[in-house]
């Protein structure tokens, strides 16, 4: 049996490899476009390819979490692509900045640092779960998808001031929640 535009989501969730091929055939131009746009300023085509592969792997690994129709699927993988490319961009620029400042030091992140970073991200996700839906979306766009406030304003129809207010209040709430969660606290 082959994957078609009707059944590919179900087949993907059943981990059928032909569904993976189908989404690569169908969505590679889109995914590559998004990734390229974010990462091309770094001038590293290899990184774009690596990120694109990583995006499709994540789609494969997390397919069972997806709910919706093909239109929602398209939105979902666009969001994943954006999120992954921003993540790659941040990691890459971090590395670049460090390496230019301390030329002769070991520029690789230590295992500890990497762990802390990964932990921060899951903690942040835990915290975002506590927010009300609209604030949740704003936080995702702002911190995971790298949207500018003006873009968020266009997407949500809220004014820039309203968004800034919501981000401010959200941060405060998160800070409170964070200190409740673990005594160490968490600062954005």
């Amino acid at each position, binding site marked *: 049996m082959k994957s078609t535009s009707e059944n590919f989501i179900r087949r993907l969730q059943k981990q059928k*490899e032909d569904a*993976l*091929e189908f989404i*690569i*055939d169908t969505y*590679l*131009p*889109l995914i*590559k*476009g*998004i990734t*390229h*746009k974010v990462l091309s300023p770094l001038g590293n085509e290899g990184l774009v*390819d690596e990120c*694109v*592969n990583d995006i*499709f*792997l*994540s789609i*494969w690994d*997390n397919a069972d*979490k*997806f*709910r*919706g129709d093909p239109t*929602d699927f398209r*939105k*979902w993988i*666009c*969001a*994943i692509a*954006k*999120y992954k490319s921003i993540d790659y961009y941040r990691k890459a620029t971090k590395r670049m900045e460090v390496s230019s400042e301390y030329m002769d030091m070991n520029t690789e992140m230590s295992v500890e640092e990497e762990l802390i970073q990964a932990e921060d991200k899951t903690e942040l*996700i*835990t915290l*975002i*779960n506590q927010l009300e*839906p609209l604030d*949740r*979306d704003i936080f*995702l*766009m702002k911190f*995971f998808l790298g949207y500018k406030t003006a873009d968020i304003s266009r*997407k949500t129809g809220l004014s820039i001031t309203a968004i800034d207010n919501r981000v401010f209040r959200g941060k405060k709430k998160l800070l409170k929640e964070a200190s409740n969660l673990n005594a160490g606290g968490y600062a954005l």
Partner: protein
Amino acid sequence: MKEKDIYQLLNELDIEENRAEEMEVSEFDKAKVKKEVKMSLRKKRKRPSWKMKVAAAVVIGGLSVSALGIAFPAYAGNVPVIGDIFRFLDNGRTGIYDNYQEYSSTVNMAKESNGVKITINDAIYDGKTVLLTYSIESEQDLGDQPRIGGYLDIKETSGGSGSQHISKVGENQYVGLITGSRLDEKDVDSVNVKWKVGSISIDGTEEKVKGNWNFSLSLQASDNEVQFVDQGIEQNGVNVTIDKITVTPMSFIVYYDQLVSKEVLDKWHGIDVEITIKDDLGNYYAGDGNGGFGQENYMSWSKTFKKLDPDATKLIITPSVTLVEYTSENHGGVEITADGETKTIAIPTKEGKGREEFEMDDIVVDLVK
């Protein structure tokens, strides 16, 4: 409420990526991403047992076996002494199977039906291909090259290919080798194999001995080490990539992909890529193709070669490409309609005429020790 992870959160986020600019992507790019993503999937699944340390062993399912009435005395000994059927059937022509005997497991499973007894002597599974050697003792003459009706059925695979050799060794006595390869590229440590023989056609006649010779066994893969290679070459619109090499004590298997550009596909009907291998010490390796799978422009093949020289550090792989025009002489198909009428399927006309061959530059692979 259960906590949501980032993928679920992104799923709920309703934003239209309307400014998304699609990028132009070629078929090559798509195939490359597919291959790399699948390779990561395989690596990920593989990690817990990177090296399979399981020695070849044959497990015989007690219950089902006794129900089928299979006996295991050392019948094999009755057939003239053929110590190494693998080597015997190869006649020293290629040497591919020279080292199979010592790494295979002795099975000695026999099944008798209608005056013909088939005994499986040895079995081996190299991670890709299952090989069984067998001997036949018959009350009647089966001719020089009887044809065994039945193929090796490897359970839980998406497809397979296989081959058979048989040879007369004495009066009404034969030895043979049957192989079956899995076509999927999953790394599977053990396989369940069924060999159902329903008839034996007597060579040179229309006669058949009908019977029931059914065997089922499960085999562990012999020690093997996988080296991911991902080195390729592109020439004249044909791209050949060596995907991985699996080294077993008695052989090595090369997995390679062939990717053909649209221009070449439009021009030729058939595009075949063969590989020949030598090493840095000057040894040439004989090989046997295991078949392949894929689509018109993108095929994955594998080929099994004889035992790797342990001192070799490099493999020099030379792909050669044959471009063929299908004519009514070398290719054909018929369509049978519901009414039972047949009509010939026309071969579409393509620009390429006759046959062209070219050899590609060598792909040199450093062997990881």
